[in-house]
């Protein structure tokens, strides 16, 4: 059997570090073939990221270092993937399902005339090639898709594939960009996020604590933060809490927002409308604390507590502290 090369597009931060999803993308690639990384950075920023890619299982890494990476939207990454894909005869290309990744996948799919599978939560190989798994309508249905022929462009939902590939010493191959299409949007300004949070990222966290409208205020929402930190958990919020301004948009869990499947999900003051459930109902264990005994979140909670979050949660934190010391 010939070697099945699977490309993984690995985003790099302006600092030169690989973005956290790299291990998962390469782990997913290893499930269906030989992982080959592709990364594009500003000049002089690729070396460390390429070595880390090897650590996460990339047997080879295609590297583009070019000024246009920080000034031109999507085009450098799409061009690098077209070239790398041709060089190794890629059978599939894995790209993160996020704002930048979706654009890259879209351009690549049309340009190379390849089928595309989006928001993919798993991959496997059957007799005929690569199969993508999807979780549809807020995880109510599971489907599988495959290309009729040709390679498959995949955007992978972060936090959905557990497999990790063993580290290797990668072959690093430098690529030059071709001429980029002139009709590309320009990046005219970059502002880095405020200081990075020490909390685990919501999408990949084993435990998620999420706060809702029942927390009542920005000050009240701090209770969710406190519990998240006590448990080493990621922090999430319901749409109602985001709309009310208690939490930033990036924390929104639900139909519109992030979909999570942690081991443990603790919902504080969240009523649990169907749109919220769509983003969290594949959590292994769900705990809900809410004053309203009729809240729909209780219909899917393994343990539901009808009570005041401002009494139950501090007692929980105290008890856990006491038991761990």
């Amino acid at each position, binding site marked *: 059997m010939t070697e099945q090369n699977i490309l993984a597009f690995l985003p790099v931060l302006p600092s030169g570090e690989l973005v956290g999803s790299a291990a998962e993308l390469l782990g997913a690639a290893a499930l269906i073939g030989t992982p080959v990384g592709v990364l594009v950075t500003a000049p002089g920023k690729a070396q460390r990221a390429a070595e880390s890619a090897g650590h996460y299982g990339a047997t080879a890494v295609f590297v583009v270092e070019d000024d246009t990476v920080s000034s031109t939207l999507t085009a450098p990454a799409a061009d690098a993937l077209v070239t790398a894909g041709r060089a190794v005869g890629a059978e599939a290309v894995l790209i993160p399902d996020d*704002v930048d990744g979706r654009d890259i*996948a879209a351009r690549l*799919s049309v340009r190379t005339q390849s089928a595309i599978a989006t928001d993919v939560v798993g991959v496997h190989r059957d007799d005929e090639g690569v199969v993508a798994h999807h979780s549809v309508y807020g995880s109510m249905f*599971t489907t599988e898709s495959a*290309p009729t022929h040709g390679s498959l462009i995949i955007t992978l939902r972060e936090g959905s594939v557990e497999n990790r590939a063993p580290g290797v010493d990668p072959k690093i191959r430098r690529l030059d960009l071709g001429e980029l299409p002139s009709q590309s*949007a320009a990046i005219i300004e970059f502002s880095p996020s405020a200081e990075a949070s020490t909390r685990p990222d919501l999408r990949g966290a084993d435990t998620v604590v999420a706060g809702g409208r029942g927390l009542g205020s920005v000050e009240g929402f701090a209770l969710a933060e406190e519990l998240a930190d006590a448990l080493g958990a990621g922090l999430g919020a319901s749409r109602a809490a985001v709309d009310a301004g208690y939490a930033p948009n990036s924390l929104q869990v639900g139909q519109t927002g992030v979909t999570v499947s942690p081991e443990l999900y603790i919902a504080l003051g969240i009523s649990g409308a169907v749109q919220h459930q769509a983003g969290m109902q594949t959590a292994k264990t769900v705990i809900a604390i809410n004053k309203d005994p009729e809240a729909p979140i209780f219909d899917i909670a393994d343990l539901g507590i*009808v009570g005041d979050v401002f009494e139950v*949660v501090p007692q929980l934190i105290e008890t856990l502290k006491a038991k761990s010391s």
Partner: protein
Amino acid sequence: MKIAVLVKEVPDSYGERRLSLTTGLADRSASDPVLDEITSRAVEAAVSYAESSEDVEVALVTMGPESAEAMLRKTLAMGADSAHHVIDPELAGSDMTLSAEVLAAVLQRIECDLIIAGDVSSDGSGGVIPTMIAERMGIAHATSLDTLEITESTVTGQRATYGGTVTVQAQLPAVVSLTERHPGPRFPGFKGIMAAKKKPLETYALADLGIDPAADVPRSIMLAVSESPPRSAGEKIVDEGDAGTKLADYLIEKKLV
């Protein structure tokens, strides 16, 4: 300036949504079709720009079954000027490659300067159609924008990226898509509803657009569909002053902390 807005009819995500377990397609009888909320924000952005500027025309574009016509009439009442509806039985279950081809073809005909879409639909959650259209039309994309500024020759906006936020700018013609950060739609007034009945609504079949859905190009096909077992309720307790302690014990016993 002519702005086209991509609108989509979807199963209401506030109700029960189902896939048919025999065909893998959306079961349209399971829930009421509604205008996807994110695309209503795109319409609002176009209409409010048209109100604040001279000579701006707003055209709605959709691909969907017959029921989408009612959605288009309702959406025209928000203040758009015309609607374009691609309707063809061959489009049932179309993959994103075909959907992008169809939408790009109808947009080419309309000859617009700016195309506005929602960032990710609530049913397919693909989020790639706007940029696939841009690639097909050979124009720029600026998607998932949290802010949008339109001038006669450019669009500018902010969007999330790795490690921060970028401001991006594209020369027109271009495709943009908007996030939930944009304002929701206005309620159409009586005047708008009456006016919408007379606005032009054009329909197209695949043959009109010169598209062959059976063309031998790579397609994505569905191999299997299954329904996830529903989640059931577990234990529910009422706090009697010790629920925090009980919860701590539960988490420790289940080795979740």
